[in-house]
Structures are given as C-alpha cells and as structure tokens.
C-alpha cells in the first residue's frame, strides 16, 4: 500500500461569492501500516483533506493517489468513519456492518459471516439484532469501526470519530482502536483537534497551520506503546505539539 498527497490545494467559493482557500499546499506520504493523525485548529481544512483522500471531495490543485493511481472517487481500498450519525437507524447492527458487502453484491451468508467476525472484534457480539438508537455513543462508533473494517480496506480514514464522546469513553475507545489496529495491521489516517488524542495514538502527527493551511510540522512519536499519559516523556511531546498549534494560531491573528 502506498498513499501520497502531492501539493493538494482546495479553493471554494462561499455564499458571498468570495474565494476561500481551505487548503494551501499539502504534501504527505503515508507508509503502509502507519497510524497518522492530522491535527490542526478547527476550520483549518483537516476534514476537507480527509474527504479528498476518501474521494468525496476533489482538490482544486495537486493530487492524491493510492497505490500509484489518482483518487477521483471513493475506492474500495479505503473506508471512512465519520464523527457521528453515519449508521442507518432503520437497520440492525448486523445489517449496518454488512452494508458495504451488501452493496458490493456479496451473498447473505458470507456477508453476515464476515460482519459477525468484526462485530466480535469490537466486542458487540451480543448486539447484532439491536438498532443503533439502542446503543450508547461509544458502542455506535464501535459499530461504525466494524462496518468500515468489514469491507477489508487497506486504509481506515477517521474523521474525529470520538469527538462527540465523553472523556472517559473517548480514552477507552482510543485504547481499543490501537488494539484493533495492531490486530488488523491497517493503515490509519485519523483527523482530530485534540493534541492529547494525537500524541496518544500516532506514529506520526501531521500538524496543519490555520487557513490557508499547509503542513506546519510532522512529528514522529517514538514513545513506546501502551503510552502512559502521565509519564514525563508523554508530557514533553504533548507540550511540543501544543506549542506548535498555539504558535500557528498566534501567527494567524
């Protein structure tokens, strides 16, 4: 697997008719099996960048490519996990997870078999016949993760998936995500505005500057996993990343 973002920029026109540059000039290479966080202040276009990688948006300049081919629309190599409201409330948990395989035309028996496998992976095997509205926020995002894994993509794209959860649940979900990542060996691109989350999860943190955003710095995090949030090492990295973000914000004011 290879994923490259080459001089991607995105300009859009707002309601006033003005041109707004969401993404300045972004380049990035993602290695196979890597856990990358894209971190930046709100409104810096990090979600736009992820949507371009997912094929949901198109760049106005540059290109994104997976396995050497340009991304022009959603591709089966990647699956996306949204912040919230992405599960289908009229479908059971199992039918939600099997959705991707269903649209690919995989037969009922096989898709349910595979869906159950991922349901077990996220620890929700007792809830296959429940509906999303019967689950807590954390459980719903577990279902969303299982649904993305079920189509067996090479890359998982996650757009602030834990942003709507309370702090406690969020920490648990981060830990579980790392376990799943270790087991499944996927490449993960994870968008967040939480420095703590980025430092806890990533191999590399890509810090974006405020609009028009560019890559301010890419920080490799070598703190061994499982990471201890209270350790000195962790605090040092977090402080460094935080100073970058705050510096960027001040520079834009």
């Amino acid at each position: 697997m290879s994923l490259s973002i080459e001089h991607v920029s995105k300009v859009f026109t707002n309601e006033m008719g003005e041109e707004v540059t969401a993404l300045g000039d972004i380049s990035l290479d993602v290695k196979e099996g890597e856990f990358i966080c894209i971190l930046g202040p709100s409104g810096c276009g990090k979600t736009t960048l992820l949507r371009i990688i997912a094929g949901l948006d198109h760049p106005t300049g540059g290109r994104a490519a997976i396995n050497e081919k340009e991304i022009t629309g959603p591709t089966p190599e990647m699956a996306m996990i949204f912040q919230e409201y992405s599960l289908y409330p009229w479908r059971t948990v199992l039918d939600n997870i099997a959705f991707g395989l269903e649209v690919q035309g995989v037969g009922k028996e096989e898709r349910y078999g595979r869906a159950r496998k991922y349901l077990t992976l996220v620890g929700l095997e007792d809830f296959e016949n429940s509906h999303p509205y019967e689950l807590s926020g954390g459980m719903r995002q577990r279902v969303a993760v299982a649904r993305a894994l079920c189509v067996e993509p090479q890359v998982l794209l996650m757009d602030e998936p834990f942003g709507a959860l309370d702090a406690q649940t969020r920490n648990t979900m981060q830990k579980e995500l790392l376990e799943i990542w270790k087991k499944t060996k996927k490449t993960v691109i994870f968008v967040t505005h939480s420095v703590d989350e980025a430092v806890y999860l990533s191999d590399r943190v890509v810090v974006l500057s405020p609009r028009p955003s560019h890559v301010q710095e890419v920080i490799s995090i070598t703190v061994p996993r499982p990471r201890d949030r209270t350790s000195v090492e962790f605090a040092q990295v977090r402080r460094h990343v935080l100073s970058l973000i705050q510096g960027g914000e001040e520079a834009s004011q």
Partner: protein
Amino acid sequence: MKITESAKKRHIRTAFLGGRAIGAILPILIIIGWEIAAILIDNEFILPRVESVLAILAAPTVDILGSGSLIDNALLSIQRVLMGFGLAAAVGIPVGIVMGYWKRAEDFLDPAIQLFRPIPPLAWIPLALAWFKTGIVSMTFIIFIGAVFPVLLNTVDGVKSVNRTWVESAFTFGASQAQVLRKVILPAALPTVWTGLRLGFGISWMCVVAAEMLPGTTSGLGYLIMYAYNWGQSQVIIAGMIVIGLIGLGIDGLFRAVEKRQFRWRGMVR
C-alpha cells in the same frame, strides 16, 4: 438499557390511563347534554334522541329508506376513496422522489405545484362535472386532487432532508446512485412519506363525503346523509356522521400503528 426501556413504558402506561380517564368525561357530558336537549326540544327533525340514533347504528346491515344499509354505503365510500387515494399515492410518491432527488426537476415543477395547491379540491367540482359527468371518475378526480399535494410535498421533503452523512457513507462503500436511492434515501424518507399518506388519506375521506353529496349521486355515506335530510330523518344523518367519523378515526389509527411499529427509529436518531 432494559431499565430505561421499562421505565419509559411505565411512564407511557400511567400517562395513557390517566389521560383516558379524564378524556372520557367530556364526551359523556356531551351525550347527556344532547339527550336532555333532545327531550326539551322534543322535535326529532331538529335534534333526535340518542336512542333513535343508536337504533340506526345498531342495525348497520338494514336498508335505510331504500338507499341501502350503512355498511353497504360505507363500503362504497371506502372503495371510492381507495381509488382516488391510490392514484394520488401512485403519482405523488414517484414524482416527489424525483423532485427531492434532482434539484432541476424541483425547480421545473415546484412553481406549477404551488399554483394549484391552494385551490381547494371542492373548487374543482364544477370542472370535474363538466369533464367527467357525475360518477366515479369525477369523484376519483376530486379525491386525487385533495390527496396528491400532501403526499407529494411530504415525499419531496422526506427525500431532501435525508442526512448527508448517510448518503456519503454509502458512496464511500462504493454504492451506485441506484443503490443509494434504494438502500438509503427511500428507507430514510419513508417515515415522512408515510406522514404524507396519512394526511392525504384524511383529506381524501373528507373529499369523498363532499363529492357524494353532489346531485346525481345515488350511493355512499355522503349521499345517505343528504338523502336522509330530504326525508327529514335526522337520526340517520347523525348515525351517518358518526360512521363517517369512526371510519376516519379507524384508518388514521391504522396509519399511526404502522408508524409506531415500523418507524420507531425516527425521533430516536442520535
């Protein structure tokens, strides 16, 4: 989860019982007041006694003044409504989906729809008679006009307000446009479409009764109460009105029951 569920049920049950007990008081008072007034007025044409109306209701299969029984006429009215309403659904739902899905179609059709929508269905009666004469075609037309707008506009609304993330999720999994329509947009819009059908049916039911009062009609509940008026049989008028109300209520209840069972997720989307 189980605890909240049962607590919710218990809450609903107590509210329901309490509500029903208090809700029964006024209808009972109305019936008592009616009976007293009828005795005082002592004129069966102005206000018949409760028991004269009950006598008619108690014999729904007996012919009334040679115009057929309550049940015969009710069945005819229901049959007519189903034709007009069925046609409205058959036109309103597909057109509504197209309008909700393609902005161009909405821009093209919406002004014309807004032009026709404020005209009450009953205002179409003279033209309907001129075009189709008295009969089933005219009635179907009137009912269609009454029901098609709520069905159509609710469908448009339902399709348009489908959560964008649901659609985008489907696209990221490689779904085609047709699959998104069938597996995401339609099920997501269905509760709103259903509301449109329920509203449309309510209007259809009003339209059929009005249409059956037209000169030249010889059957149906609307005809029956008009005919009873001509014979000075007010107890038949009131019995007919009660049947009209009960059928409307019953069918609305059916719609609601389906809504509750099938679309529980609506309003619980978090």
